[in-house]
């Protein structure tokens, strides 16, 4: 009897255990995380997830490829703008510099970070589209921001790698087998995204709630607005050689003189200046911009911390009395040599507990729109309109105006002048030079000369205008093919 009773009790226990088993192995997510369901159902966290894109652009340093903001340095090295201080012994930097990349040494490149951000973008589009928990104005703004960002990443991806897979969902099963998409189709997507972004985004700079515009004096130009979308769209049309639309879009901003106008040379890279269309707020303590930290050489010259300096090719291209040469470049004498360096951003890092934040890293600025319109107008035969645009830039740089010196300049010559103006205006900024050389099909002509001079005497090959994809990704996606040539 006793046995039976005991067994009964035990069996009862077991049954109890079994029925409560489910409960016993169920867990909530960790306190340190949020589930993806929750993240886009709350104003603050949705804003936080989208803001991560800007914070990460701002986080990166320039010492190696990664976040696109590093292009100011890396694409400058690949082109004819920056020189690499070889004693540093950084194999990656050296490979970008000497145009000696291959699928083994390319590492993460810009490929990895950009597609990681695109996952966040696509997840946000999916999350925001179905969300019911966040306010309508915020939803609209954030959707606009991520559509803008999607175009932004794809713009650089196609210009750095050629054809790339166009990934528009978060479904890994689909994406892991993605093929490369023709560049033209990627551009179509960019145009579509940017047009949507123009409609969705606020025309005012919004504050930390993602909705409320700043009061006039306290404006922070650190989130994309309708104007950022317009600026990128103008650039996209320029790259598509859609001159009419390029002029149309750039004109939209250029006529918004209330919000945007050119500022004196000394103020172009100051935070929240009127020329800035979109800037990045610093997130490192003691730091204004990565550009200031990396480019500005100390008196001891280049080193591991400052591994690049400005090429003499840039220095030699400045016209006489160009204010940009005196204001935007600096030099030091070290190791018995003179090293020039980009000095657009002047504030270097500080160890002081309190330090002034004067400069923000500028992603999009009005001067580019001026030169986009100049180029579009030239192509469309509006030489006069083009000249007046170019002269805005030349005038600010203290250079003689074309209007006065050479008003009858031909189309080709004007295009050459515009391209050179872009080289000088945008040196060491966001890889403009590297992209312009490709866009205008002048890359082979230029690099054939430059590459052998960078050491090793290796010759330039046309395929090197695109960076290779790392071997790992090629292995992981059977449908992905290497950039031709590599």
């Amino acid at each position: 009897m006793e046995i039976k009773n005991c067994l009964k009790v035990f069996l009862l226990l077991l049954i109890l255990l079994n029925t409560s088993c489910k409960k016993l192995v169920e867990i909530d997510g960790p306190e340190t995380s949020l589930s993806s369901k929750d993240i886009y159902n709350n104003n603050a966290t949705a804003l936080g997830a989208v803001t991560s894109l800007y914070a990460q652009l701002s986080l990166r340093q320039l010492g190696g490829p990664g976040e696109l903001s590093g292009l100011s340095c890396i694409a400058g090295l690949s082109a004819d703008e920056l020189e690499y201080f070889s004693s540093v012994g950084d194999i990656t930097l050296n490979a970008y510099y000497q145009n000696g990349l291959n699928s083994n040494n390319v590492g993460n490149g810009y490929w990895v970070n950009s597609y990681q951000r695109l996952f966040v973008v696509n997840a946000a589009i999916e999350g925001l589209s179905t969300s019911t928990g966040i306010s309508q104005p915020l939803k609209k703004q954030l959707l606009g921001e991520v559509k803008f960002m999607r175009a932004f990443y794809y713009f650089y991806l196609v210009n750095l790698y050629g054809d790339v897979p166009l990934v528009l969902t978060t479904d890994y099963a689909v994406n892991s087998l993605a093929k490369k998409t023709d560049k033209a189709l990627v551009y179509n997507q960019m145009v579509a995204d940017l047009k949507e972004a123009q409609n969705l985004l606020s025309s005012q700079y919004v504050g930390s709630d993602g909705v409320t515009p700043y009061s006039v004096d306290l404006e922070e130009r650190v989130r994309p607005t309708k104007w950022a979308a317009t600026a990128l769209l103008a650039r996209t049309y320029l790259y598509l050689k859609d001159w009419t639309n390029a002029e149309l879009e750039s004109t939209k901003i250029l006529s918004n003189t209330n919000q945007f106008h050119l500022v004196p040379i000394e103020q172009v890279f100051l935070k929240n200046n009127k020329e800035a269309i979109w800037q990045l707020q610093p997130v490192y303590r003691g730091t204004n911009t990565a550009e200031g930290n990396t480019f500005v050489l100390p008196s001891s010259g280049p080193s591991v911390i400052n591994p690049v300096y400005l090429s003499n090719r840039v220095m030699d291209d400045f016209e006489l009395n160009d204010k940009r040469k005196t204001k935007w470049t600096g030099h030091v004498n070290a190791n018995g040599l003179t090293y020039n360096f980009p000095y657009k951003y002047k504030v270097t890092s500080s160890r002081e507990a309190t330090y002034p934040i004067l400069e923000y890293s500028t992603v999009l600025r009005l001067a580019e729109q001026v030169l986009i319109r100049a180029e579009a107008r030239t192509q469309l035969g509006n030489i006069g309109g083009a000249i007046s645009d170019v002269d805005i830039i030349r005038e600010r740089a203290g250079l003689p105006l074309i209007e006065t010196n050479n008003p009858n300049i031909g189309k080709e010559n004007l295009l050459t002048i515009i391209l050179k103006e872009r080289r000088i205006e945008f040196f060491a900024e966001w890889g403009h030079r590297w992209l312009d050389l490709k866009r205008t099909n002048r890359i082979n002509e230029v690099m054939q000369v430059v590459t052998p001079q960078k050491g090793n005497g290796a010759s330039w090959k046309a395929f090197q205008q695109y960076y290779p994809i790392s071997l790992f990704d090629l292995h992981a996606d059977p449908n992905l093919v290497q950039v031709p040539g590599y």
Partner: protein
Amino acid sequence: MDKIIRVMKLVIILLTTAIIQVSAASYAQKVTMKQHGIELVNVFQEIRKQTGYDFLYGDKIMEQAKPVDLNLQDVGIEEALEICFKDQPLSYSIENKIVTVRLKKPGFLSRIAAAFGSIDASGRVVDSENRPLPGASVKVKKTGKGVSTDKDGRFFLRGVEEGAVLVVSFIGYLPKEVSASANMGNVVLEQSLSKLDEVQVIAYGTTTQRLSTGNVTTIKADVIEKQPVNNPLLALQGRVPGLFIEQATGFAGTGVKVRIQGQNSWNYGSDPLYVIDGVPFSSQLLPGGNSILGSSGASTDGMGDISTVGNPLSLINPADIESIDVLKDAAATAIYGSRAASGAILITTKKGKAGDTRINFNLQSGWAKVPHQLELMNNVQYLEMRREAMKNDGILMPVPGNFGDNDLNGNWNTSRNVDWQKELIGGTAGYQDLNASVSGGGNLTTFLIGAGYHRETTVFPGTFADQKGSLRFNVGNTTPNQRFNIQFSGSYLFDHNQMPNYDFTGNALTLAPIAPDLFDQGGGINWAPDTLGNSTFMANPIGYVKNKFLDKKTNLTANMVMSYKLLKDLEFKSNFGYTSLSSVYTNKSFLESNPPEYIQYSSRQTTFGNASSSSWVIEPQLIYHKKVSQGTLEILLGATLTQNQGKATQILGYGFSNDLVMDDLLSAPRVKPLSSISSKYRYNALFGRINYNWQDKYILDLTARRDGSSRFGPANQFHNFGAVGAAWVFSNEDFLLDHLNILSFGKLRGSYGTTGNDQIGDYQFLSLYKPMAQEILYQGIPIYLPIGLTNPNLQWEETRKLQVGLDLGFFKDKLLFNANYYRNHSSNQLSNYGLPIITGFGGITKNQAYKIRNSGWEFSLSGTNISSGRLKWSSNMNLTIPKSLLVDYPDLEKSSASFTAIVGRPLSAISVYHFLGVDPATGVYQFADKNGNPTSTPVLGIDNTKIIDTAPKYYGGFQNTLSFKNFQLDFLFSFVKQIARSYFPGVVSGQFYAGIGNLPVSLLNRWQKPGDVTSIQRFTNGDALSQSLYNVSRSDAFWTDASYIRLKNVSLSYTLPDHWSKKMHLESLSVFAQGQNLWTITGYDGLDPESHSIALPPLRVITIGAKINL
């Protein structure tokens, strides 16, 4: 009832004897007998022959009779009997020519009844020290009927024939045959010296090698304490077949990789389950801690696992351990279900024993050194290399300036010749280990209290030490009625680890021999400024001596086992356990460890970290134990409830105003959170086992378990596991018992079953976003990032284990042979599936359809070679031949693993280029392309066609114990046949950066001019040959033979003769010398073939000490 039957029996016997007596013929009444030492029984027979008198006696009674010396010449029967019974414990009476013999005790009737009927035999089974042996079996040999002893060792066997042979047996003791009597007193069992009878701890119970159906190897305290190691796992190296252990570094608290019967899982969870006194223990520490300790072989790309360093078992004091049992096959492990796919290691701690209070001390102190140095270039050779590299590259002038070629541009003194191995890793580390314990108790209550202290320093310059203090106790109590028993143990260990957070070994091997002194004349760090004041010795590592890393770890474990005997055959038992591991660390880096140039970019910083994990477990069990037919049936039913919680945070404080305030976060002007981790793991299960042992001949073992784990999605949390094990002790078969003299034991056993693996990170089925630490928030907005791709369909990984074993004992078990064949099939692999980054992440954890087969042979042979008089010699040898194979991978070619996995090849196989030496024309490495033609530009994915297997081919150990008089010598050789990454075959030879650039002398055998045939490419200063070096690192030249035979452990001890120690008022005293990693034979080209890295290798440790028992 019994009594009536007994009385009736008596009546029948009396009647029969009466008839005999009537028919007895008439004989002479005189007796003549002359014999020495004749048995009384024989005397009775002779007397009967001569006189016709009959004798009435019981066999049992006669056993107490003494032989007699007789010298009788025609004496009367009464006189003869008088003489015979003189001094006998017997008396007699004569009645009608019948002599009735009885014990000289009163109580006639009952004695007669006892003598002639069946009796109730009772007694107590004890060991040689008079301690009761509960659970011992007492069986009537003839009928197989039997009982077990109670908690006090007592037994009571009803209705046994007086004098019947009883077999008394108990696990770990030699069985004994005694004859039954009413009051048998103490039956003393001698402890079996046969390995076969040593107690083996298995999941939820114990067994012996003789009766086990599974594959279990046991290592006892005496073996562990002979080895000066800081982690008990290291004491198992080379001693357990099927167990491969690799020590990552020579630091105290080093990572230790443990694999039982190979790697079953592609990249998650190949760690065994550790169970200490029934409570599961972590196999990996939480992330954080000092990275120089090296990894314990956690998953290679599991989230969050990469940063785990060190090994949690280093927080267990080896001196506290009574035994370690390694469970390998399904029969032994399936009852642990999902957690035992990679085997289980059960650690049993020491418990108090009844008897006099004993006080033990074990004190040892020693020295440790790096056992082997590489032969590196001296200054002349080094400079020759550098100048030749310059010349090869067409560089005429060394680069001036402090960032230039300091070794050649005049900045450094080229006549210096420093042995950096001696300077940086040539020191002697100290080793101290002190343990004391008090134990004792009575029959009902026992206790043990122990304390330990362990200290190790490093071979580096500077003073660093790892110190551990530990306390433990154990109390056990049994109620007088023996039904309730409780054991409670607790231990607390505190580890104060102050080590550098930098391993100097890499610098020791690569610093240029002409590099400047480490310290300047003022005792500061020597940055060797040039004439302009710029630092030239940026790579001076000695700054790391100044940095302070302090890791304070604690390990608290407590467990309680309660058992209550509900009924004679039914016992309820429950484990309660709690463990808590915590670590609080600070990592300080001072300004002065940076060269002056970098100070403006640097700041004083301290990383404040803490990590803790705690878990509890409750395991109620019901055990039913009964004789059924001629066998023993044991049924176990139980449940497990467990939860594990982990938390870790890291905060960086920086910008401190001075060195003194760096321990306080409040003094940091700037603070940055680095990471926070929180995890919870819940797990529960129901399990059961049925074991039936028929006459110790046929043993059947069935186990089953149903598991639920929180690591899987709601649909897949539960799963069933089970195993069948069987053993046939054929040496107990009658047909063999009579015919084989050499073979004393033979057993054939086999098992088959399933186990699982859930060793992936927590929460992987949830899609999660994590906040990202930022110094300054972007627009004041906290940001969130997705952690990874989620897979809500995650399931258990399953391993099917098949095992067949043969155990043989020869020459009365003096020679034991053991062979095992195992074959484990792992499927539904939980692994990281590589994804292209266009999916947002590099991979996803997913169950994959491929199968891994781990098979192998394990052999062990142990024997007592000499056991005569004062000299004893025994040895033990084991060998494991493992093989792992990727047997099936559906749609491999479409998978991202297609470049790394090869079906039909070992799991550890990699495809590399085949190295063809140096192109004699260009001096550059060349390789075979896919057609076998030499090329210097092989293409990955096409030309890497050579397959090599990186797993060990075989491994094992050879151990000997010699004792002569009071001396005892033990030594263990361990051996491994394997290949490993070579030390530096293809580093850029000729380059110099900031002080680094030296290489082994062997690289001097380089290509110098066209036509040279060598295997080392030309020296070069720049990056020109970097691709070539990358290629060589992916070729078979990079994999070199790293087999070794190592004199792993030697222990020599001398026990003082008893009368000496008695004089000193000691129970016993022995002194000893021990050594670890004493001597290695290897062809490996790096520092050490076991760690095969450029981390500090396992050290050679030599200690002396004494063991004192009061």
